[in-house]
Structure formats: structure tokens, C-alpha cells
């Protein structure tokens, strides 16, 4: 049962979405992050994407772990339930929540520490289960909240604020996700709203696990010279592979693309992703090629960004399809459908006599 919330009274000239809500309706509590933190830009992009999608706030569930990044679920869509789990264990909470009610939209926000160190196992297994959720990593190469230790996504040669140089190879969540069968894998940059917002829209609407690894500089601990996750370095070395546009259901494609340049991917709800290739021979529907392209760029210190891989063929059944659960959420099945009753009990017990 859902109710449409009355839009908060705001300036009448603010644009309204299909639900009649302004962007304000998708905001959350005031951020307590450092001024300039990349994470705040991602929060803004999420607000924008949810507004554009005309999501009913109460149909969104926000999940996170622990870290500066994980705090941000409190800073958008205050009309949505939020669950700030323990460090690194958001994916299991998401799995259970999703199992209980498949009708809602699930967005998980995590950090590189939360996902790639303590949470690596749960992250990989959520992908393997193809959980229907959007998983955003706010990737800054450090542990922000605990004050600047290298994370597992720090690049070889990256220098910490105190001078130390990282000599261990980074764990790239994009490569992992490709290996583990994720059907939607993207990378973006907190500073590029133009690229990020449609990715979030598409990720939310896509059925199955959608990963967006967002480079999100930490201005306090990892934005100095020598850091490969700084604004400067990221801006310089990020290379969009494909531009994605999100086209909601029943909306015509508004821009004209030269023939052959754009490619449409239909999502299960009728909305579409419009892909425009940038690199000449990049094919975002070929998993092995995507993996090779990411690897090749990485070797030269560059970040391939955009919608790196997408599979909307449904070849990879998502969690509920695998489990053959009913369309109706498990949390609201009536007792009659669950308990065999006293008669049933007697039958069952017959063989224990």
C-alpha cells in the first residue's frame, strides 16, 4: 500500500517531476562531510537521478556500511527508509531486505574501504547472487573516516599525504564485477554529473546487480599532488569509453544522434539506455572485451569510465528469478500460503509415528 506524499511547499517556480515533486523532496539531512568532499557531489547526483526518475521516496531503500561515504545515505531522500549497517556488511543486509520485498528499489552506498577490504567477500557474493540493486562505491583510495590510511583501491605509486608510497596493487571493483558476472558495470567521477546522473538512473532501473564505481576525491586526506585519486589526477586521466543516456519509459529520444553512433538498450521496465561509443571499437556488451579494455587503460594509469558493460538480455537471472520467489513480496504473503495448518501437521507427522 503506498500513499503519494504531498510535495513540500517550496518555491513555485522550481521544476516538478511526474509525481509533482521538486528536487527538494529528494534531499536528506545536512551533510557533515568536509567541504569539497567528492561524496557530496555524488549525493547531489543521486538526488537528481531519483527526481528525474520520479521515484516515490518511500519505495526507495538506502543501505550503507560505515565510512564517510556510508554516511551519505542520510543526506538524500529523507522520505526513504535507510539502514546504516556495520562496516563492510551492507551487502548482506541488502540481500535480506531485497529477499523480503522485491518491489522496492535498493540503492547501496559504500566506500572503497567498506567494499574492498572488510567487505570484499560480501561484495563479491552479492554480485554472484545478482542481487537487484544499485551499488555505488564512492572510491577515494583512502579510509576517510579513520583519517587517511591507504585503502585497497590505492594505486601502485600513489603517495599518501604523509609521504608514504603505496606498493601494493589496487583491487579494481570493475574487474571483479566483470569476472563475477555482474550485468551492469560502470565507472564514473564525482565531478562529472553529466556522466554520472544517467548512470545512476539506468542503474536504478536495470534489473540485477548494477555497480557504479565513482572516483570521489577525499579533499582532506587524498587530494594532494602524488595521489592518483585526487581531483587533478582524476580529471586528467579519466577517459569516457561510452556515454550513456537514460531514457525513461514512453519518452521519445529527444536528441538526434548520427546513425550508427548510438545504440539502444531496453531495460525490463521499458525504459532504455542510449549508448554512444567514444572509443572506436569498444563494445560494452562484450564482457571479455570490456575487461581487456579496463585492464589496458589501467596499465597506462588511466581510468576507463562510462557504462563499461551492460547486459539487459536477462541471460543472467537475478536473485528472485533464481529463487523462483513469487511476484508478491515475501514479507506480505498471507499465513494461509505459508502454514499447512493443523491438518497439514497431522499428515506431516504421520511418518514420525
Amino acid at each position, binding site marked *: *500500500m503506498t500513499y503519494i506524499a504531498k510535495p513540500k511547499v517550496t518555491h513555485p517556480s522550481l521544476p516538478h517531476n511526474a509525481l509533482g515533486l521538486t528536487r527538494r523532496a529528494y534531499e536528506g539531512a545536512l551533510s557533515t562531510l568536509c567541504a569539497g568532499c567528492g561524496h557530496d557531489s555524488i549525493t547531489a547526483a543521486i538526488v537528481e537521478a531519483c527526481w528525474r526518475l520520479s521515484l516515490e521516496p518511500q519505495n526507495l531503500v538506502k543501505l550503507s556500511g560505515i565510512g564517510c561515504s556510508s554516511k551519505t545515505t542520510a543526506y538524500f531522500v529523507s522520505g526513504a527508509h535507510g539502514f546504516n549497517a556495520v562496516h563492510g556488511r551492507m551487502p548482506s543486509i541488502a540481500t535480506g531486505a531485497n529477499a*523480503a520485498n522485491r518491489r522496492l528499489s535498493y540503492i547501496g552506498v559504500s566506500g572503497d574501504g567498506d567494499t574492498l577490504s572488510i567487505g570484499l567477500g560480501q561484495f563479491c557474493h552479492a554480485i554472484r547472487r545478482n542481487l537487484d540493486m544499485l551499488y555505488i562505491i564512492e572510491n577515494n583510495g583512502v579510509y576517510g573516516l579513520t583519517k587517511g590510511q591507504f585503502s585497497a583501491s590505492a594505486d601502485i605509486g600513489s603517495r599518501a599525504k604523509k609521504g608514504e608510497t603505496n606498493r601494493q596493487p589496487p583491487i579494481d571493483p570493475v574487474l571483479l564485477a566483470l569476472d563475477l558476472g555482474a550485468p551492469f558495470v560502470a565507472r564514473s567521477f564525482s565531478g562529472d554529473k553529466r556522466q554520472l546522473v544517467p548512470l545512476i538512473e539506468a542503474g536504478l532501473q536495470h534489473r540485477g546487480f548494477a555497480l557504479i564505481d565513482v572516483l570521489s576525491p577525499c579533499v582532506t586526506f587524498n587530494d594532494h599532488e602524488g595521489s592518483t585519486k585526487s581531483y587533478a589526477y582524476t580529471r586528467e586521466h579519466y577517459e569516457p569509453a561510452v556515454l550513456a543516456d537514460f531514457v525513461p519509459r514512453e519518452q521519445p529520444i529527444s536528441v538526434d544522434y548520427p546513425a550508427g553512433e548510438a545504440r539502444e538498450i531496453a531495460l525490463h521496465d521499458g525504459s532504455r539506455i542510449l549508448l554512444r561509443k567514444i572509443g572506436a571499437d569498444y563494445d560494452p556488451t562484450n564482457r571479455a572485451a570490456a575487461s581487456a579494455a579496463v585492464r589496458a587503460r589501467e596499465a597506462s594509469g588511466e581510468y576507463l569510465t562510462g557504462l563499461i558493460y551492460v547486459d539487459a538480455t536477462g541471460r543472467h537471472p537475478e536473485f528472485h528469478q533464481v*529463487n523462483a*520467489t*513469487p511476484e508478491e513480496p515475501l514479507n506480505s504473503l498471507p499465513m494461509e500460503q505459508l502454514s499447512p495448518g493443523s491438518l497439514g501437521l497431522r499428515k506431516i507427522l504421520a511418518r514420525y509415528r
Partner: protein
Amino acid sequence: MTSANRVNDFTIKIATVNGTGSASANTLLMKSIFRSGVPVMGKNFFPSNIQGLPTWYEIRVSRDGHVARSGTVELMVALNPETYARDVRELAPGGYLLYDSTWPRPVLLSRADITAIGVPLAKLCNENFTGVRTRILMKNICYAGALAALLNLEVDRIRELLGETYGRKPQLLESNMRAITLGYEYTRAHFPCPLPLSVEPMDRTAGNIIIDGNTAAALGCVFAGATVAAWYPITPSTSLMDAFKSFCERLRVDPDTGVKRYAFIQAEDELAAIGMVLGAAWNGARAFTATSGPGISLMNEFLGLAYYAEVPAVVFDIQRVGPSTGMPTRTQQGDLLSCAYASHGDTRHVCLYPADPGECFQMAREAFDLAERLQTPVLVVSDLDIGMNDWMVREFHWDDAYRPDRGKMMTPEQIESLQKFHRYLDVDGDGIPWRTLPGVHPKSAYFTRGSGHNQFGGYTEDAAEYQQVLDRLMTKWQTAKQRVPCALLDGEGGEIGIVSIGSGDSAVREALVVLRAQGVTIDYLRVRAFPFGEEVQRFLAEHRLVFVAEQNRDAQLRSLLTLETPVEKAKLRSLLHYSGLPVSSRFIVEGVLAEVPGLAGAGCGSRGRSAAEEVAVTCARDAPPPGKATTPA
């Protein structure tokens, strides 16, 4: 063994090798005794491997309905050469030894006080069957035939049972029956049958079933309406989840569409399993997991979150021997403390302690209701003995009027009528706040977190706001005391009491009968939940000396009693059993008498009921909430 009448009153122990099919023979024997109307119990002592190691099965036949281990073995079926010597040693004086006389067994000579019965099982089977595997399997059915002869079991009943098992495989039925007959005929031909210890039909098993606790608990979860089951395999909890899955496959799959009205998730580990349960329960599904000690250790962090953020969850801990990996296939009550206080900080959890499969079934249902009523994890602390052994218990009943108690979960209408919803406000003064589900109403959103929060659900680092929530959690804890199943009392007015918990119950009850026969009368209390209700306090207060019988080294139940009631701990005497095997009644009897040597004959009066009788006392708390029903004990 005393020469007294042991008809329907003895213990058989069968020593074999695991993976050789003896399990079906043992079940067959036990069931055929059960169907003769004679109370019986079966306990399986199996190794932590898959194949080829020693395994034992103990069958207690008890006309008086005792289902604990007695502590002695009157008939040993010693079929494993590796353990032969110690098996022979374990037999009670005057007892009977059944062995495979295909090979000579010189160790036999070491005991003149027992009767050896040699049946050439291997030879018989080798002559009658072909194929290595078949011969091994049939040898392990053949001894059931020999025992049938010795104990005077009805062959027709055995045939009936085999028919139920192999009904659709007539070949198997035939070969099994042939093996039975081989053993039966040979034994009758060569030995005086039946033995003085034998089975005579009675009518004391009507209305009972034979079932293990894990199956019963799984059934309870099905009936309670659990829809999300997440777990990571670990002995001895696995069979609970297997049973849940197979009940669901039978009962909850749409025959036309294949749609499954449950989600069964094999998690990547226990941290994930409990996380999934929390996520699902937070989102309104009845969700549970089952595990054992190592899993509880791994769930500590999440259990603390659930306590503090007030998320319901049901966790079955099927205890096994610790510490650490310990002995995975042996039983213990070693997780009492770690379940009660799992996690750092000021954290405490509601626990239920079933004593047999009947309570497993019932408490599974209660656990879900309590978890949602109290919005906190409820741990059902069972053990391997209850969970995996064969217990004779009263048949379960179900009240069709039962509806899940979702506790204080707001309806859309209730939310609509609110100015603003506040998650952690103590509106009713019982320490239990109201909650809402996602997706239900635009005004219902709140933020769940394990970090400091105030009564409105907001983040806080303010001392007073933090303390207010922590104090309310203690109010809720007080409320919990009145909601959990009460302890069961048997006997009253005596000076001496005994307290036990869980699977120790049957041994204590039998011991009390034995002690009473020696003139020692002791009142008995079995705790069934944590926190303890005031009936526990009262029992401890009213007795001068209280034994605490439990199955661990560190007196964990005694510790909980000491910490959580006002009892002077000096009057608590521990009876600790921690060998990994289920405690026997003999251990309790001897423990009591050793502690209080002058006790026997002193006639410490108490108006107690027979301990072997059904304990019928239930306290007011057991009454179902209006409109809800519960299973009769």
C-alpha cells in the same frame, strides 16, 4: 547388571563404522520397539568425517518413559574391530555382547561376567549376497535380525517398517528382509531366545512421535510463517536447514508455476547469514538462521547491531563441543554465556532453551513472535543432542487460529494519523517502540543505525540522548522478563532444589525418580528462557541448597543465575558434565549424592510429583495473547 527384570528396561549400544548403512538398521530397531508401545530413545555418536571412522548408536528402552541416557549398557553390539576392546569393556556386568563370529575375537576372554553371542554376520551375508557394497550394507541389516530374535521383536512389524521405507523399491525391500531373516533365523537356531532383557508390547507410546529437534524446529519455522532462511552450513545445525528446505519444497511450491513461497539462501559465511536475516526481518519478513558455536562467534558484531538498532531476528544455536572448532559431532551446552551477552558494549539477548523436539517446535514459533514483539534477536539455544538425536515426544498440535504476532508494527492508517513518526520513542512505557516497514507510507521513513541515536532516530553524540535510549533498552529488558516462556517447576516445599536447562532435563527427571526411591526428594526447576522471570528468583530464594546441572565446564547456567537473579551464589552447587556425550541420569544421581552424602535416607520432604510424569505446570505467561494460540506442551 542386576538380575532384576530388565524387560522393557535396558540400553543397547551398537558400534559400527560410519558410512556403512547401519543408520537404517538402528532406526528400524528403534521404531519397531516404539511401535510395540514401548518407550524408546536413540542417540547417535558419530565422528566428524564422512566415512570409515567409528560410530555408535545407543537405544534406550524404558518402560517408565525415561528418555535420557541411563549411563550403562546392557547389550553391546560390537561390530567395529577398531573399538572392539573398549566396547567390550563398557558393557555392564551381566550384560550381553553380540559380535560377528565370522572372525575370532580373543578379547572376549577377558570378561567372564558377560554373555557373548556370536553370529557370523559377514559369513551369512557373503553367502547370500553379491557385491562388496551390498554385502557391507546387508551385514548392517542382518544384526537387526539377530537383535529381533534376542529381544523378541515382532518380525511382521519390521517388515511393515521396511515396507514404508522401500515400498516403491521392491528389490531393496526383499533383500533387506532377507538379511533380517538370516540374522533372525541363525540367532533363534543357536541361542536361547529371547534374552531376559527383551521387549514386551505395552501401550505407552500412543500419542507420541519419534523425531529429532532440528526437524521439529524447522517445522516450527514453517508453521510460524518464516519466509527467509539464510545460513551457512555447519554441523549440527545443517539438518535444521535441510529440513526447512525440504518441508518448504513439499508444502510451499506452487505445483503449476514452480513458484516458491520462501527464499532459502546459502550465505557465504555466518556474518552474511545473520546480516541477511537482519535485512529481511527489518523489511518485514519472518527470517531466521541456524548455526553452532563458531557461527555465534562470527555473528557477534551483527547481533550487537540488532540489539541496539532493535531489529528482530531468530537464530538457532545448535550447540556442539567447544571451545573453537572443538568436537563438531558431540554435544555440549557451552554457548549459554556467549549467546546471552554476544557482542561488545552493554548488549544482552533474549534466549529460549528447548529441552526436546516438542519444545523446539513450539519455541520456534514463540521465537518469531517474541522477536517481533520485542524487536530484538531471539536465540533459540538448542544442542546436538536435542537437534540430531531421536526423541520420543508428544505429538505436536497446531491451532489454526494462530496469526503471527508482528508486535508494534504500524499500519498505514496508524502512520497517517501521526504528526510525525519517531522510531525509538517509548510511547507505551514498556520500553518497546513502534516500527514501520519501507514502502508502506510516505511519512514512515526512519534511519536505522548502530551508531549513537536519540529516541527520535536521529544521529547523536549527546550524552543524555544516548543514555535515554540505552536506559529504555533496559526497560524493554524488564518487559521481556514477563513475555518469555516461564521456567517449569516440579515439586515444591522442599529444602533442596535442582535447576537444569535444555537437554539435561530428561536425565534430571529420571535422576529425581531414582533419588526419591532412595528417600531423597528434590524440587526441580527447568529454566526455559533468558532473561529469567520472577519464578526463577523465587525458586532460588525458597531453597536452602540448589544444584545446577548443566553440560559445560565453566558452569555457565550457574553464572547466568548468579548474575541475573539476587540468589546468594554460595547455595548453588554445580553438576557439570562436559564429555561431549549427553549427560546420563546416573551422573546426576551420583553427583547429588556425592555432594550431600548424608542425603540418602534423610528424607528431605517435598510434595513433588513423579519426575517421569508429564510436567504440566505452566505459568500465566504461557497463555497465548488474545486471539493467538499456542501449542499445548
